[in-house]
Structures are given as structure tokens and as C-alpha cells.
């Protein structure tokens, strides 16, 4: 089954996302900020990265930028979890190389549907 790296500084969101994805059979690993995610990503290639935007230490936008610099992550889908329903954050994410976004608040089914589409 596909592997997913879930990045969020909020423990409850992380738990919810992990629980949902694991329940659907995905192999999930958690990171609580961009820099932790980046160092995990360097050790193992994930099929999808799911990242919050606003995080301490390294935010989601910076994470995508850094990921895209890694050869292995050039084409890996990276989805941003964002509360900003429109505007600059989404664009900044796209510019940095994010594949797309999931708008918060979302429920587990919406999350799974989007991920299913991306991973096939």
C-alpha cells in the first residue's frame, strides 16, 4: 500500500489524519513540522506528502520548496492542508511546487477521497 508522510504541528489533526489514513490501509508516518518532515523524507521515499501550511520552525511552503529540490521528490504529489480558502497561501504553495490543496475543515471521507484520486 502507498506510503504517506503527514505533517502538521497540531497533534489532534495529526492523529485524525493518521487514524483515517491507517484505517484505509495506507502506511503513514507523522512529522510535526517542516524540518522534521524533510529529514524523514530524506531517509525514505513516500508516495505522497500531506502538509499543513502554518507550522513553527519550517512552514509548509518552505517544505515543498525543499522537497522539490530533492531528486527523489521531484514528481511526488504534495498536498497542502490549508484553511485559507482562497488567495495568496494557495498560490504561494503552488508556486513552491505543491500539487494541490485540501481545504480545512475537512472530514475523514473528504480527505480519503482526495488522496484516493491522487494516488489512484
Amino acid at each position: 500500500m502507498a506510503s504517506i508522510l503527514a505533517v502538521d504541528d497540531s497533534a489532534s489533526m495529526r492523529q485524525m489524519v493518521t487514524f483515517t489514513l491507517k484505517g484505509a490501509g495506507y502506511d503513514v508516518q507523522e512529522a510535526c513540522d517542516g524540518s522534521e518532515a524533510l529529514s524523514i523524507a530524506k531517509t525514505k521515499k513516500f508516495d505522497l506528502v500531506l502538509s499543513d501550511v502554518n507550522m513553527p520552525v519550517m512552514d509548509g511552503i518552505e517544505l515543498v520548496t525543499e522537497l522539490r529540490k530533492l531528486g527523489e521528490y521531484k514528481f511526488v504529489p504534495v498536498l497542502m492542508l490549508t484553511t485559507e480558502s482562497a488567495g495568496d497561501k494557495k498560490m504561494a504553495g503552488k508556486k513552491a511546487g505543491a500539487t494541490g490543496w485540501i481545504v480545512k475543515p475537512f472530514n475523514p471521507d473528504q480527505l480519503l477521497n482526495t488522496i484516493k484520486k491522487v494516488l489512484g
Partner: protein
Amino acid sequence: MSIDLSQFHQVFFEESFEGLDIMESSLLALDLSEVDAETINTIFRAAHSIKGGAGTFGFMQVSGFTHVVETLLDEIRGGDRVIEQDHVDLFLLCVDCLRGLMTDLQAGSEPDMAQADELKVKFEAILAGEAIATEGSNEDSVETSATTLENITNSNDDDIKGWKVEFIPCEDVLCTGNEPYRMFRELQDLAEAEGGSVEVIPHLERLPEFSKMHPEMCYLSWTILVRAGIELSDIEEIFEWVVDDCDIRYQRLADDNLSAVESHLAPEAIEDVNEEVIAEETVAEETVAEESISNADISGEQKIDQVTEKLAQVVAAKAKTESPKAVVKATNKTAENTSIRVSIDKIDGLINMVGELVITQSMLGQLGQEFDMDRVQRLQEGLGQLEQNTRELQESVMKIRMLPISFAFSRFPRLVRDLSKQLDKEVDLVMIGENTELDKTVMEKIGDPLVHLVRNSLDHGLENAEERTANGKSSNGTITLNAFHHGGNIVIEVKDDGAGLNKERIRKKAIEKGLVGEDEILSDAQIHDLIFQAGFSTAEVVSDVSGRGVGMDVVRRNIAELNGSIEVTSKAGEGSTFSIRLPLTLAILDGQLVKVGEEVYIFPLVSIVESIQLEKSMLNNITGNQFVMQLRNDYIPILCLQDIFNTGAEKKDLEGAMLVVVEGDNEKVGIVVDELLGQQQVVIKSLEQNYQKVDSISGATILGDGTVALIVDVSGLNNKPLEKNSDDQTQAA
């Protein structure tokens, strides 16, 4: 798949409370003359996470309220607005308000939104003051309603035969992880669900010469014929992530052939219809809401969320009706669950020790299997090892419950700030030893007494600025909170550099209240101690800050309940220091084991003043079987546990009996025991949990031989004897 989101609520509440603490401390640390961008960012992130989590877990009231807070913070963060003192005050009020809302939600009750609504209005007023904010949100709503309007026109049209999609991706579309194949597949799924089909026609015009081709680029473009009666919005959703940097055109397919009959709104065209849209906005909202809800294959919760995506406004109205259900689902039990965060180091230490214990156990097990007397020494060594392992294990388990006292101290910067404003005094707060660790339960219970002491010091202890300067002191008063370990106890000091306790006034007051005789000679310490007497207050004016003088005795009682003590030292003109001494934990007690009849009782070691053998000359009979003993200058009542607990054990002659003098609530009492057994650490088991509450017993423990021993509640005993004995007397009479 449906997942019960309530299982994440507890974690959400915990992190929200943490976030609120962070917001509060960051706001307090904010220096308005030189605003630190990272501090603002931290505050913003905390608010942002609370909003996101609240939305996800169905607490729409909280997320709606946090939204306005976040918006203002975002403007400040983005440099669109300069933060002012008023903003800080307002944010602090929001922190309090959110804390209240969260507490209500955690308890499973409906939160009171009155204060939140009031604050929200204030925020909206601030936000409306600046055009940037309103403009931004208008744009959003227009954009969403533009799409929704389209939905309506489409859904009213029943005759959709299909769509022709021209898809010319930007060359680096693959580098964002967007795979065109995925979109075709989605289109196909969508069409097949409606019984239709999809035809993908690739175009190679953009393909360069082979030598110029870059392997990571996408040079193809496609025409996709979707032959199915699906909504344009559904197709648009598939291309949602690439629409901004790819060229996508939609055309509607005609009835019988593939030619397009009607050109439809390209994304750019939407802006042109904005004005009409606004006019029809309200109609659009209602219809869309209905439409999404009637969608049969999605669950109830999802409906709301789907609408959220499109229309924030509809949700705002909906939330009021939806939220009560969410709250009911949360159930009440979450409120009782408390958890504790433990550092990995502590857990590792624990695992390590359990490992050692297992080794010792297997060593002893082996020894036991083939034991002969030659190996006694090894057995003893093994048992010694076991004892050490057990003790270490106990220590590290106890450490798990230990938290740094900063958890209790963290509320004081805010409290001191608010109070000093209210009282118009300038106060510096110094906190020392914030990393000193203390049992979680003790920590929770010491919070209120500490608040009381700090309030008291601020209100009564510190003088106002004029008085201070007149006395040659700096105009700023200082309150120091200091925590440190001292021989198995933790000591917490609340120190002020104010005027100190006024001995004369205390003495006068005490005489007035009849607490001491007029010609009684009292030491300084004794006078200071008077402020802990019930109903004692020297404040000439009752203030709403530190209450009406019912405080200090309550403080002392609360601390005594934790098996702790409090004392005060003071010097006129230099200030006062309140020292609280507490046991590190409530789970283990240093106890003195005594035997009365067949029963073994335990007295907390801290409560024991001395143990003596009664002599006839000390005894005084007051009435019936009530005796007091003269111990130096004190008269101390003598109690028999046989009477108090009605054990029916035979009472020995008082003369020559062993007496343990214990002190609780500042009262001494002598207890007759048959035998002093020994001192040991005992693990306290709650009687209330395992049996029921018993007067004068604070708990029980299990002794080495497996028997249960009761731990005597010394303060409880002091309130007990009189009524008990009067009962006896009435029976005797």
C-alpha cells in the same frame, strides 16, 4: 467509512489549552515599541491551529469566533496593521473567552457565546476600519458565489449531453506532482458513474525536436470528450489544482454530434458577471445548500462540510443548528479524562529499570529452582538487588507524575499584569526555580492558594508608587515566586518587598476579635501567625481584589489538606515572605505505624510532634472519660482510637500508656496507642475509590504482610472528638 471524530477531541482540547497559554504568554511578552515578528507569528499560529481544529472537529462556534481573531492577527502579521495596546488587551480577553468556551465544550455542555459575540463585534469593528480586510473577504464571497451561480444555471438545465475539454497544460505541470493521467482517470470514473464515456485525443503540436526535449517537461496537450450528463463544476473540480497555470477551455456538446453549440464561461469570464452575481447571491446560497444536502451518497456530517467549501456564510448560519448535536456526541466522559505528558527520557528510564527488574527476577527464579543452603549468600544478594530495583522503579514511576512548577506559575504574569493595572501599582514579577518538579495533583491543588497569596501581596503587601518613593524605595514593587526542593519537600515562596506585616495592627485586631488576651505576650512569629486565623483581616477597606479576609485561613487549610504547611516571615518596611512547604507527592507518605488493639494505624510522619509515655502527674480529668494532658505549657486532649472508630478493643489504663502527640490544623492532640511499630514509606490507596469515605481516615495502605492499615487523618480527628465523646456521654447518662 465513518470515523468517530470525538476520539480526537481530548487531544484537541489539550493542545488548544496549550495554544491559549502560548498566546497569552506571547501577548504578555510583546514589546509594543519593538514588535518581534516571530512572536506575532507564534500567536497567529496558535489561533490558526485552534480555528482549524475547531472547524475539523465540529466546534463551529469556536472556529467562527477564532476566525475574526485570526484575521486581525493575520493583518498584523502581514504588516497591514500596527499592533496597539488596545489590540493586546482585546486579544487577552479573547484568550480568556476561548478558554471558557473550550472548558464548556470539554465538559460536554453548550458554551455560552455571549462574551464571544460581544468580542466578535469589537473585532469586526476594528477590521471594518480598514478597507483591506473587507475587500479581501468580499472578493472571496463573490468568487464562491460566482461558481455557485453557475451550478444553479447548470442544474436547471437538464439536457447536458457532454463536454469538450481543451487541456493545454503548462510545460512543468509534472514538476508539481500533477499527473494529467490522474485527471483523465478521474474524468473517466465520473463519466462512467453516469453511464457515459470519455475519449482522450492527444495533440503533438508542441512537441519539440527530440534533441531539445527535456524529460521532465510535458509537451502534450489534449482534447477530452466527456460524453456524460455531468455538471461543469464537477469537471472543473478535477482541474482545480492546475487551472491557474494551465489553459483549460470547456465547451458543451450538442445533442446528436460532437460539435459545440454553446460556449461556456471560462474561468476568466466569471469576473465579468460578478455584479449580477451579487444580486442573486442570496438565492444562490439557498439553492446550493439544498442541492448539496440532497446529494444522496454523502453522510450527514459531510453535507455541512461540503457546503463549507463553497459557502462560508451558509455554514455560519447552519452551525447554530448543527453544533448542539456535535456537542452531545462528545459525551461527558471526556471531561473526566485527564492525561499527562511525559518526556521520552522518563519513559526510557522506566523501561530500562523494568529490564533490570526482569533480570533480577530471572536470576532469583533460577536460584529458587536449585536451591541449597550454600547459596544463601547469593539469595541475599539477589534480594538486595531486587530491593534496589524496586526502589528505583518506584522513584521513576513517581517521576512520571512530576511536572515543572512552571505549570502553576505560568498564570501569574497575566494575573500580576491585570491586577497591577487595576490597583494602579507598578509591579515586577520575578519567578525563580520554574523547573522544580512537583506532583501533578499537588500542582493542581496549590494553584488557588498561590493565586490568593499573590493577590494578597499585590493588594496589601505592596505600597503604591508614591508611598514607595517617599520611603526611599524604587517605585516598582517586586513580587518573587521561588520554588526549590528542600529535603524531600518542595518549598514555594511568595515574597514581596512591600511594607511588611503591621504587627501592632494585627495584635490590635486579634484582641478586638478575642483571639488573644490583652496582656498576652506574643513573639513576632506568633503575631504573624495570627493572620491565618479564621475571620481575620486587617484590611481597613475591603477590596474586591483579595476578598474580605476569609482568605488566609482557607489557604492554610488547603495546604494542610495536602499534608503541607505555610508560614510567614515579615520585616517592617522590607516586605513579607510566605513559605509553603509541600510533600513532593500525594501517592506516597512517610508514615509512623502504631498498633491499637489488633489494628495497625498509620500517622503521617510530618504530623507527629512527639511520642511520650504518660505519667499520672500529667493527666487531668475534665469530665467523665475525657482527659487532657499537660505537656509543658499546653493542655492537650487525649483520644483513644478505640472510641473514635468503635473498634471495641479493650482500653488500657491511661497511666503509663504510650501517647503519640500529633498536630493538624494547628491543634495538638494526644493519641493513646498500644505499641509504636516502625516508620516506613507507604503507598496511599484511596478509601473513597475502593470503599467509601470514612471520617478521620484519609486513606489506607497495604503492609508487607498483606494486611490493610488505615491512615489517620489528623486534621479530621481534631474536629471529631468533641461530638463523639458527647455522644458517649449521652449514652452513658
